[in-house]
């Protein structure tokens, strides 16, 4: 073997390592960067302890998140609903959070909560069909949200503006509900349960 041939072989092997290193670094960069550049955070207007409230009420989630007469769902309870237990002039706790809450209560203004699970406008979703008719537990789609003691920051997609919960925490988006709620997940569940999955079922 000539020295020229030997050098070419050595060189070739080392170069392929470089390609592999680039591949690993690039891929890691992409996995790390995707959520970092894509999502921004917003703080909720104030904190809320779901766990604490659940211990106080008698009808679990339904105590505040009710189905209305017309079948629509009270995703965010009205301030009047809060007033059923709270009074504006007698705080039930101390601290900045309670004070901020009472401001809304005094002004009779709705609290501008940021909804983690809000679907795009083009999606029609009936809670009645899924809870009252199909008998789904809230946690099936919302996870342990009802057991949390504080609200995590609301993360939203800088490009689309949608909540990160729709795509899911993972950058690849492979998980299903409750960690992700994309159209594929709806379609999969509809297929599995023999429910019509025509476009117009969800897109009205």
């Amino acid at each position, binding site marked *: 073997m000539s020295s020229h041939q030997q050098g070419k072989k050595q060189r070739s092997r080392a170069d392929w390592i470089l390609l592999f290193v680039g591949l690993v670094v690039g891929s890691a960069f992409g996995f790390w960067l995707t959520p970092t550049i894509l999502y921004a955070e917003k703080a909720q207007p104030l904190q809320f302890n779901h766990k604490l409230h659940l211990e106080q009420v008698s009808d679990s989630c339904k105590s505040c998140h009710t189905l209305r007469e017309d079948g*629509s769902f009270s995703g965010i309870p009205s301030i009047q609903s809060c007033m059923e237990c709270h009074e504006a002039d007698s705080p039930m706790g101390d601290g900045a959070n309670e004070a901020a809450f009472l401001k809304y209560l005094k002004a009779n203004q709705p609290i501008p909560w940021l909804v983690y699970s809000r679907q795009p406008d083009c999606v029609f979703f009936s809670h009645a069909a899924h809870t009252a008719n199909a008998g789904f537990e809230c946690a099936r789609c919302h996870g342990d949200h009802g057991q949390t003691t504080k609200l995590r920051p609301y993360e939203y997609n800088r490009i689309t503006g949608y909540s990160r919960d729709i795509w899911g925490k993972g950058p690849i988006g492979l998980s299903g509900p409750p960690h992700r709620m994309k159209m594929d997940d709806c379609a999969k569940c509809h297929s599995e349960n023999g429910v019509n999955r025509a476009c117009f079922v969800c897109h009205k």
Partner: protein
Amino acid sequence: MQWDRRAFIKLAVGGVLGIHASPLVWKLMDDSTIWTQNWSWVPVPEDGAVAFANTVSPQTGNAVQTRLVQGRVDGTRAIRVEGNPAHPLGKGGVVPEDASALQLLYNDDIRVKTPLMRDKATGKVVPLSWPEALDLLAGNLADLVKKGNAQGIMALGHDPDSTTGQLLLSLMASLGSPNVAFTPDARETLALAGLVMMGQTEFGFDLANSDYVVSFGTPLLEGFGNPVATRKAFASWRGYPKNSGFFAQIESRASVTASQADMWLACRPGTEGALAMAMCSIMIQEGLYDQNAVENSFGFNDEGDFPGFKSYVLKNYPREQVAAMAGVPLSKLLKLTLGFAKAKSAVAVFGPGNSGGPGRMYDYMAVMALNALKGNIGKPGGVIIQKDIPLKPVGNPGIAGNVQPLVSPIQGLDQNNPQALAQAALEGKPYGINTLLLVGGNFVYNGPSAGTMHKLARQTPFVVAITPFLDESAMVADLVLPSTHWLEGWGDSVTPYGSPVASYGIHRPLIKAVPEAKDAGDILLAVAARLGGKPAAAMPYKSMQEALAARTEAMGDFEELAEQSYWIQEKPAYGAPKFNTPSGKFEFFSLGLFKLLSGRAKQPAALAQLVASMGVAGGLEAAFLPHWEAPAALADLGTGMPLVMQAVPSLRTTWGDDATTPYMVKVLPDTMLADKDKLVVEMNPSTAHELHIYEGDMVRVDSTEGSVTAKVHLFEGAAPDMVFVPVGLGHDAFGFQVAGKGMNFNGAAKVTSDPMSGLPIWELTAVSVEKV
């Protein structure tokens, strides 16, 4: 390892590949596509509180709910029309016309947004302000009245029973013009047949509780009565929630209704009434009629000089002869009649015909006689008299002065004949007209003869159209006044055709109207107020809302009524009805009609002459009895017009008096509208073969009134020697989605007057078909 260009490239390529192996690129691409859908200029509805509001569609009489979203683009926006589950007739169902109503409401291209004035010379339109427009109209009317030419004002309205119709009648009467007519309606013929035989005008068919239904050409599944209630009754005969009914359809074509029937009796065109008479004849011969009902009737047996129904029917309608004449097998006719006579709750249904017209009064009377022989009047599943709707009169329709109308009132029992008015005005006999008011109904498209109405509008010096849409009537008007859509404004409607219970619907403003639109009633009130004097005194309301409140005073709190949107009789009024006839009984021989015509004839000797002059072919012997007369339009057969044209209705089109939505045109099958815009007419293969016409050929269907060009579809279910033309297509207006699709049936339909009712009829037309 050397760090050189080649090494760098390998590292860079690896990096790029690595990034592509990560979700970075793919996720960004996905999000970018979603981002483009959310650009600020892409119309996305804003969020807002959703609410449902009740209302009633005046076009179908169906109770619906509208989903409204607050805070959308400009105030509240309607996003959907659904059925109202609380309404006893519709029970939550809708028809295509109601479900797609928003397509017209929010179609800016076809809504009239401001009063428009057309320059006669150039045809250009210029917008006007409301005060200018009202001054122009009121000035024109006042001028004619001042010159003593009030009869030169003619008005055509849509529904005389609506409050808008009542206000139009009041306005015309106070101006001193008798020349007013409304969209001709089968309800009028039904009322007249009821009046002369029962002394009752408001009644219907208890289809939901009937176990044996015989329909004489009635398009039950193509928009009969309250269409949802009819379909629900139909469903109940077919297994849900009970499988109880036998249904027979007597019709020349295998229509949707006929194809769903247990028995289809394919008869020759216009012979339905004769078959009803033959069924009466069979029931009498076999002794299968209700003895009790007949004993408590008048005119079954001979009365004085006049033959009774029994002897008349037996003499003139022998079963074999009628079956042969109508082209139906006698065995089938006999089986149908025996089934009808023996069924527990049988009913015979009639009107409106396939063209949506008023139909022939003697046919209605013949089927009424059949129901009477069955003894089903007032019984569950039979013919049921409705309760009166508790409405108070609005306005004052009493006419001032003695003005000769364009059409003599002696020409029939009903004076509502827009066709006859238009003809008389066109011919200038006895006089012409100066001003034409078109208040809904779209007469220039819907006719009855579209050509005549178009000619009249062209010839009249001043034409005013009050309409929400730039429809065919608006296209020929000199002054177009924008009225509200039924989801935007106040209005009302009464019981749909044939319903066994009385119902009343009221609609109110649910969303903000297009900027300048006013309720049609408000426009009439504003004109009356500007005219002052008699018109203002006859219509003393500040607004349409006030007029409606006054009219419905007996229904309780107006706000509650408006919110509920309807009043309805709780359940059918079963039990022996009160016959308000001269004899106080059901009259096979109409004593009331005899007295009325005797009064008009003045001398007994002139009665036969009067009956003949009205066009009753059966003569004096038959004039006061239910009987069958050959359709007048068929007299043209053999004069180079060998075929009979008949309309094909569909739930996916309207009969033309209401607007057709783009959705309805889109869902039409290829057997009605093919190749996007070609009208499809049906012919029997044997008839087509004789004329050397093949499937898909283009033909021209000619009548004495006009013609339609269409593609031929050969259909075994079409009776021979006939051509079936879809009705409700061929608009020139309503935007590109609706205009230019097919051709207008009313452009070729021949209109005659019914000899007894005096109403226009256009169910059948003699035509020739030529390949083009």
